């Protein structure tokens, strides 16, 4: 009888811990976000970025988008003094919707969705493929003018 009570208590504790550790919000969809308030902390806690970009104003942007194993992707924008300005998920539904309207250039798609997981071709038209957080894939096709002419998820 006492053993059953101990087992019950243990199960209750495990359930409570599990609920507390369960990610919520963006983290639930996009996986673990990069952590830290400075460039040094982000480097130490999250590792090297998959891609490094710069805003027009010169601020450094690190993109974490492990193409092979992760479906979510994050962008970390640093101030000029190395402090983190923002950590935001990319490839959000609103970003995808903007790409789907068509007409976006390659640099705009890079800004909205980050680095593609794969590049293939239909004729001479480039097709960028993205792994999305809902486990689907998005294919973005560029026309001869190098603007998005078609995008489809599936």
């Amino acid at each position, binding site marked *: 009888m006492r053993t059953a009570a101990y087992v019950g208590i243990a199960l209750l504790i495990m359930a409570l811990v599990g609920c507390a550790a369960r990610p919520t919000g963006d983290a639930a969809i996009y996986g673990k976000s990069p952590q830290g308030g400075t*460039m*040094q902390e982000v*480097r*130490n806690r999250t590792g*090297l*970025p998959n*891609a*490094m*970009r*710069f805003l027009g104003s*010169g601020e*450094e942007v690190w993109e974490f988008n492990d193409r092979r194993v992760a479906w979510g992707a994050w962008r970390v924008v640093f101030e*000029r*003094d*190395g402090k983190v300005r923002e950590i935001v998920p990319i490839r959000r539904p609103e970003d995808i919707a903007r790409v789907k309207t068509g007409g976006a*250039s*390659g*640099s705009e798609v*890079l800004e909205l969705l980050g*680095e*593609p997981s*794969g*590049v*293939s*071709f239909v004729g*001479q038209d*480039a097709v960028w493929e993205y792994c999305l957080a809902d486990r689907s894939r998005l294919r973005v096709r560029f026309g*001869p003018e*190098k603007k998005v002419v078609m995008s489809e998820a599936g």
Partner: protein
Amino acid sequence: MMRFSRWVILAAALSLPGALLAQSKPWGIDPGRSTMKDVRSRIGMPSVIKFNAAGEEVWEYNNNPNGFHAYRIVFGADNVVKSARRMRVDADRLQIKAGMTSKELVGIMGEPSLIYFIRNRLYWEWRLHYFGNQRHRLVAEFDEDYTLKSTALIGAQYRGSGTTHGYGGVTP
């Protein structure tokens, strides 16, 4: 002995055009003729896709973190290769000056192989060949304001760092 030397000189002279051709046309990529599709099929996915100030698409094969070769291919508006060349060569390294920003450094050398902090100071490293094909690491130290303070070339085998044993990445 004299005859042997002549053969060595002859062999070197014959191999020189091939070596130069490999440098000027990596993977046989021919600027003005080869297309983006050719590049994708011959080399594979680039490490980085970006757009330069002129709006041209740029594919970089940086072979980070272990490779000593890096290539940059620029495409024109028609998806035809405009230029294809090796990066992180001496000509690139010599452009680096103290006070440069991280954006300027990435523009010259491509993304670094390593980023780390020592005593709160930012350091970047690239792997490159120096003085022919001698494997080296170029270490860049940044100032407190995140501009370049100094650089140092260190032999890849210094302190047995083991960098020479790494996978070298894609090369033509």
